[in-house]
């Protein structure tokens, strides 16, 4: 019986994450939040945090609990904290979303919901970092694990700033009310959250997952090292941009502050370009000639990442970043992060299901192949619809067409639902021929709860 090598709660994290992804897209199709209202309106904040915490962070945590032990060939330490972390994050997120609803005037409650969220969410992320950081601690880390380690530091920064913002909005911390946190802390919260925690970690995971499934050489390359360093420098500059600006202003160098942010952007783009070289290397030097759908769909996500970089440059060059930042963030969140997430789930879920079900009988009984658990012929249609929907959505945001945007969001929602159905079918072994499905000694995995010991 495969026990500790399979992370017990990963499927539960994935399930919660997918529910939030579907929910967030339903909200978008309904026309709630951005672009119908301003980007900083509470309605938009609901949408944004359903995506970033509910979907992307839970997905990332679930994947890391499974993936970090594989990355460093060490068992997960403190696994008993994994479920409490999920509970903290879910209750914290519920409080956060309710707090934003309160802010939007939807209802009135005597409880300081945002302050509750500002406590529970950081607690959840501290637990996550405790488990993953404790597992990585004192192990000689290879490059992919180093990306993850930086990502963990970034989620702590993001959660801390988020908690500060939540407490400030709730009227706590009056002493800090004089600092303009919206200008100072919010950009860092966004950049370190999306760029550091979600993107940097995803990059680290992809450095190992892609070569693993495409059989590409995965020895560390100079470009990976450089990409890591320049990414770390960009994140540090970004995180310290405000303190640097304050310091420079006191010595009369106000203009140098924008230079720090500018340098951070250049370094971040350099990190992306180097990462692009490595990706091209993995695809070109793969030993497996047939690219499976997960790696094919991941290519679309990488394309979206490249497009995000180009869009950022274009918006900076034309001085329209502030006006179109919503479109940029939409492309990053849905094209790159969600695209990569869904594409990798399409491999990870069948793979883990296969291990859970057939691991105990492997070598004793004939077992189906992992690919027998999915129907790529159907799957690729959903991914195509999804990515086309994201492209259309980005375009409609850039040309200010909220009505068309909802139509594009409906397309991505339908594609997402279809992919979720495919994942459930994989989990249920529905695509496996009847005679091969359950050889003697194999047991059908539960949909999203761990099998009891």
């Amino acid at each position, binding site marked *: 019986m495969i026990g500790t090598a399979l992370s017990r709660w990963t499927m539960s994290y994935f399930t919660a994450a997918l529910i939030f992804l579907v929910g967030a897209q339903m909200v978008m199709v309904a026309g709630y939040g951005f672009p119908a209202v301003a980007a900083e309106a509470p309605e938009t904040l609901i949408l944004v945090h359903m995506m970033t915490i509910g979907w992307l962070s839970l997905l990332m945590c679930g994947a890391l609990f499974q993936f970090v032990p594989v990355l460093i060939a060490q068992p997960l330490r403190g696994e008993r904290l994994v479920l409490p972390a999920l509970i903290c994050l879910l209750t914290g997120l519920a409080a956060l979303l309710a707090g934003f609803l309160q802010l939007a005037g939807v209802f009135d409650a005597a409880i300081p919901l945002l302050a509750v969220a500002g406590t529970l969410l950081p607690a959840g992320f501290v637990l996550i970092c405790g488990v993953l950081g404790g597992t990585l601690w004192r192990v000689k880390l290879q490059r992919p694990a180093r990306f993850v380690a930086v990502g963990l530091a970034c989620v702590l920064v993001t959660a801390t700033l988020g908690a500060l913002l939540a407490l400030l909005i709730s009227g706590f911390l009056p002493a800090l009310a004089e600092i303009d946190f919206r200008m100072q802390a919010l950009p860092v919260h966004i950049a370190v959250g999306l760029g550091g925690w979600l993107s940097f970690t995803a990059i680290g995971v992809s450095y190992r997952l892609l070569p693993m*499934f495409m*059989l590409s050489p995965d020895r560390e390359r100079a470009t990976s090292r450089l990409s890591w360093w320049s990414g770390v420098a960009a994140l540090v500059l970004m995180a310290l941009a405000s303190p640097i600006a304050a310091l420079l202003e006191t010595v009369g160098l106000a203009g140098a502050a924008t230079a720090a942010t500018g340098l951070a952007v250049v370094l971040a783009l350099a990190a992306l370009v180097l990462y692009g070289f490595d990706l091209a290397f993995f695809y070109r030097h793969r030993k497996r000639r047939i690219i499976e759908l997960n790696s094919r769909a991941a290519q679309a996500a990488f394309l979206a990442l490249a497009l995000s970089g180009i869009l950022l440059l274009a918006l900076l060059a034309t001085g329209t970043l502030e006006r179109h930042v919503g479109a940029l963030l939409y492309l990053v969140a849905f094209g790159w992060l969600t695209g990569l997430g869904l594409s990798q789930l399409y491999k990870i879920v069948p793979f883990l299901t296969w291990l859970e079900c057939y691991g*105990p009988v492997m*070598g004793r009984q004939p077992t189906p192949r992992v690919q027998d658990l999915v129907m790529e012929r159907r799957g690729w249609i959903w991914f195509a619809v999804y990515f086309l929907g994201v492209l259309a959505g980005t375009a409609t945001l850039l040309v200010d067409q909220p009505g068309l945007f909802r139509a594009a969001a409906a397309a991505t929602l339908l594609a997402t639902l279809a992919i979720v159905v495919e994942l459930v079918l994989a989990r249920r072994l529905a695509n496996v021929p009847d005679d091969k499905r359950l050889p003697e000694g194999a047991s059908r995995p539960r949909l999203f709860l761990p099998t009891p010991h």
Partner: protein
Amino acid sequence: MTLPYYEVDVRPILREGGEPFSAIMEAVDALAPGQSLRLLATFKPIPLFQVLGNRGFEPAAREIGNGDWEVIFTPAGQQPDPGAAEPAPAVDGAITTGEIWPAPVVELDNRDLEPPEPMVRTLQAVEALSPGQTLAALLPREPIFLFEELQARGHLWRGAFEPDGHYRVVIRRG
């Protein structure tokens, strides 16, 4: 002119329940060209005959009393095949016995297979062994899922990274 024997006495290691394999392989690596190895052990180390045979040594064994054996490994003159060289295995923590395992009856090269095929084929081959027999498998990476499955099934293993980054595991059917 013949060089004097290079002498290795692994009897103390064996009596303490230790693992003499790496000491022997170190000695083999330290041999001068054309030099022979004189090995003293508490049993007739038949598995070594094949391992060192792969490296071009011919054994001559005789009992020297008290159940101890002396084996002279003489280079056969031909160039040893570096591909057949047995690496000094890093003994896994789960293994406490110091006995020498029989030479692998199967050598699998599972490097160029996509996951989980390396694991499937390795376990298939393990299940085909008789108890006590061993097999060797080259894998693309350290196989933590495989280790867990081996442990659950009561098999023993020893593994180490190859210089080229692949992982070589020797599994003994329990």
